[in-house]
């Protein structure tokens, strides 16, 4: 059980560290892609654990618990947003935010290409 959680913690710290280092190298404050690096590390880490024969139901539970807590955590995040400030920002904020969202939605099919190009997709 602990192995899964330890692997997760180690991957998050490694990713964060890489993200912070990359940000410093670029001369900005903060973190560039830390969570992204951590996810790639976890994908590789779980592959190594499987290869070494350490994969077990308990290992998967150690990871799965946190993956399963994901939606409640997102609900907590939503419940602690400053929604009042977002609405008080006035028309400029609503317009600029809204336009950015709608154009990005419209651009998804343009950049994502045909569904059949994806690995493992069912096709149409």
């Amino acid at each position: 059980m602990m192995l899964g959680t330890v692997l997760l913690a180690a991957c998050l710290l490694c990713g964060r560290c890489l993200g912070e280092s990359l940000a410093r190298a670029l001369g900005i404050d903060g973190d560039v892609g830390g969570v992204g690096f951590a996810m790639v590390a976890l994908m590789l880490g779980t592959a190594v654990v499987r290869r070494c024969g350490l994969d077990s139901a308990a290992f998967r539970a150690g990871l799965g618990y946190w993956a399963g807590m994901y939606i409640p955590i997102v609900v907590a995040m939503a419940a602690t947003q400053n929604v009042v400030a977002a609405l008080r920002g006035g028309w400029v904020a609503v317009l600029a935010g809204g336009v950015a969202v709608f154009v990005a939605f419209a651009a998804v099919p343009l950049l994502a290409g045909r569904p059949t190009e994806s690995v493992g997709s069912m096709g149409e």
Partner: protein
Amino acid sequence: MAHLIDGLAATLGKESIVTGLLFLGAVMAFAGFVSHRWTGGRLHASAIAIALGLMAALGAGLVTSGSRGMADVAGFGGLAILGGATLRDFAIVATASSSRFEELIVAGPRGMLALLCGVCGAFALGGMVAYGCGYRDPIDLATIGGGAATYIVGPVTGAALGAGSEVIALAVATGLVKSILVMLLTPTVARLIGLNRPAAAIVFGGLMGTTSGVVAGLAATDAKLVPYGALTSAFYTGLGCLLGPSLIIAVLRALLAHQ
């Protein structure tokens, strides 16, 4: 009886993380009930739960006039920890354990293109709206444009360039509007824009960028897509903070100087 009520109030206040977990459980259960009974499962329970969370944050913000939504309500401070960056990142990374490395490699170049288009597009659109609303200073345009990227890029860009505090507040509000719209609208438009496979989620994360909006929107659409969207959106804020006070402001100054 009075002792019991006082004791309960004191306990809930001291154990605010546990209280927060109970609150989340209640919201999830209610959302599940609404999804199943009232919409026949058409509207995903997580989409309803996230919308309920946002409504709770709005109500709490109006009552307490604080900036942390439900976390400002006595006894619910633990929600700020449960929904804070640490646990959020921990859980996002955990969702990657079920995703496939091959998907990532296939969509890699498209994801990078989406990131560049997403960041530059947000600055351009936000800047144009601000210009249309009467802002002419390149610093103000870059700051509000940054807000149209994410609510972090806006203030970071503004602070680096020395923008006024009301423009920075406006940029934060713009980013919050974006994040909330993405959370609420993604499940509805997902079918329309073909957001049903990992490659599209990678592109979506790169174009939208707002990690909170992307992951909540994808969670409400199909939880399997979350890690792919989160992966590209993780780079977005960093890229925006990098380009805003450097390339973007230079382009804006050049554009406005020619008028």
